[in-house]
């Protein structure tokens, strides 16, 4: 089932949480909704589910091309997984998962045996077989999360909405569950929208990423598109660490050529170049093309790469560079060394753009 949101606006009192948002998710896609805290991700998701009503006359939600304004939550064929699981505390895991089947009108309700079978299959799917009789309080955070997912899947929803599914978990479990979600989505093939404020998670798992900020979607695209070709400075800074080089638009700034927001980069004016740490180049020698001079402040090893923190000598700004192990050893950097900084690739935005 496809999901389409058209010009949705949702306010709480006189505060607008979601402003004129439009979004299309095709059948079977896995879309990540990212953005900082308070940017309206949950609100958008809840509006799609029907847990919030859009402002009167401000927005349409179409499921499979059909306006669902009049459909209550339970009839939208949506599986919703809450940020804090919202498992039924007084029911066992088995009862939790079976809930959606047991509340069906008796005509369409599966028999006891069938329900037991479905519950067993779902617990297999989330790798928690044998935990039927436990209570939610006897499970770990990650297990609860998976039960919440199994419960939502039991009714065979056409759309799965996950609100920060891995929010409360530690990094290792998150990474595992991320892979597992990817696999699950592959196996079940249900249209899925999931919220996260972890950009890495979004880029890794999703088919497409929608970046939200202050109630609007700033950009939607494939992970590569939003990461490599951010439409706005916000998207650029939000998705991954980025170094800012402020300056006038001059030759040294637009060396890599890519610019945005319609401003001619050669026209004079203040601008900022956004450079990812792995696009920063460090050299011992001023090798022909102009570079900035900086001093090595500190270094840190992060697995296969090494991070080098530099302070520019003219603007006193800090720069983060990511070097491969080999390059790092080649340079033999020591704290206090003076080096030349340049970049392979930058994205330049003229400064009338506020972040």
């Amino acid at each position, binding site marked *: 089932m496809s999901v389409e949101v058209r010009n949705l606006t949702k306010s709480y009192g006189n505060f607008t949480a979601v402003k004129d948002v439009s979004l299309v998710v095709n059948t079977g896609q896995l879309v990540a909704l990212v953005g900082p805290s308070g940017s309206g991700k949950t609100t958008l998701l809840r509006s799609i*589910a029907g*847990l919030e009503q859009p402002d009167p006359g401000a927005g349409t939600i179409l499921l499979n091309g059909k306006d669902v304004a009049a459909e*209550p*939550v*339970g*009839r939208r064929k*949506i*599986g*919703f997984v*809450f940020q*804090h699981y*919202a*498992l*039924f*505390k*007084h029911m066992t895991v088995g009862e939790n998962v079976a*809930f*959606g089947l047991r*509340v*069906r009108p008796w005509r369409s309700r599966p028999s006891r045996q069938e329900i037991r079978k479905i519950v067993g299959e779902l617990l297999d799917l989330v790798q928690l077989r044998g935990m039927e009789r*436990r*209570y*939610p*309080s*006897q499970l770990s955070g990650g297990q609860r999360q998976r039960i919440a997912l199994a*419960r*939502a899947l*039991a*009714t065979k929803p056409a759309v799965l909405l996950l609100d920060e599914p891995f929010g409360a978990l530690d990094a290792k479990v998150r990474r595992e569950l991320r892979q597992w979600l990817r696999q699950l989505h592959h196996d079940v093939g249900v249209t899925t929208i999931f919220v996260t404020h972890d950009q890495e998670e979004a880029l890794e798992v999703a088919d497409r990423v929608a970046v939200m900020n202050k109630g609007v979607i700033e950009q939607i695209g494939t992970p590569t598109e939003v990461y490599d070709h951010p439409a706005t400075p916000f998207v650029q800074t939000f998705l991954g660490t980025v170094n800012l080089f402020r300056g006038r638009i001059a030759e040294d700034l637009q060396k890599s050529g890519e610019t945005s927001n319609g401003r001619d980069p050669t026209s004079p004016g203040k601008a900022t170049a956004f450079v990812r740490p792995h696009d920063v180049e460090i050299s011992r020698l001023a090798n022909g093309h102009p570079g900035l001079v900086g001093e090595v402040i500190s270094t840190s090893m992060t697995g296969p790469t090494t991070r080098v923190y530099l302070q520019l000598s003219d603007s006193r700004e800090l720069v983060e560079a990511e070097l491969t192990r080999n390059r790092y050893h080649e340079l033999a950097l020591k704290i206090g060394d003076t080096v030349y900084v340049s970049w392979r690739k930058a994205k330049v935005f003229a400064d009338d753009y506020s972040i």
Partner: protein
Amino acid sequence: MTTTTLATSSNRRADGENPATGSARWVRIVLTLATVAFIGIFVVLPLANVFAQAFSHGVSGYVHAFFADGPPRGVHMPVRERLKMITAASQARQTRSAIAMTLLVGTTAVVFNVVFGVAAAWAVGKFRFRGKTLLISLIDLPFSVSPVVAGLIFVLLFGREGVFGNWATHFKWPDPFSIYWRGFNGHWWPFGDDQQLEGIVFTPLGIVLGTIFVTFPFVARSLMPTVEAQGVEEEQAALSLGASGWQTFRRVTLPNIRWALLYGIMLCTCRAFGEFGAVSVVSGNTDANDTIPLRVEKLWQSYDSQAAFALASLLAGLALITLLIKGVVDWRRAATVRAGGGGVL
């Protein structure tokens, strides 16, 4: 009785040695002794006295207060004896009617207050709206209004000279004892009644109103913290899984509030059965409208203290049973929490 149960529930977490006061052991001992002495003098002793007085004429005397036979027919006996037996029989009959009245009025009031209390706790706990604080203080109002004043309010509203006096004195309602089942053939309402009663004040209906007013905070108040802590997510999850509103209430909301609800109902019942002030005003002092507390007072006034205590022992017994249930509830709850059934209440 109700106040003591409230007090014990609030300092349940007082165990464990406090390093600040733990060194002064005698402080603890003195405080404990003082508490025990206080409870002994003001709670246990009077309670024991109630039962002692009730049984001061033995078990037969106790039973006699409720079931006394009239003088046997055709047997000669002195007129004084005869008169005494007739009086005793009619007194016992009135006592029984007071018990029936209390059961009827109390149960009705409790049913209403459960419905109201759940609705109020729900509204306050689950929604944000303007005037919520005001609503909460209004729910608490009966705690601060003297019951006698509460009774007077109803008299001033519905009494002959009252604001709605004209309407209220001619208000007709079916006598609950005359209601019978007449089926659905030709009617939308399957009950019929033979007798109708008129008026509100000085009738059982007035007593019900007074009792409802005085006892309505109990259920709402004991539910509110639980409902609020519960949040809305579980219910929204149930709705998103296709449950109807009723199913959601039945299967998700109710199980989560059941202990709090049971406790609230118990407090409410005790208070409803024991209410004196408001009922005394709206009952109009007629014997037919007596409830247990009113009847106790009348027996006491007529120097029949043994009968008064016998009747009072019923209320005391109810309080003891409530205490017992509360103990069981607390114990069960602790057990559920230990077993990991979630910290409900």
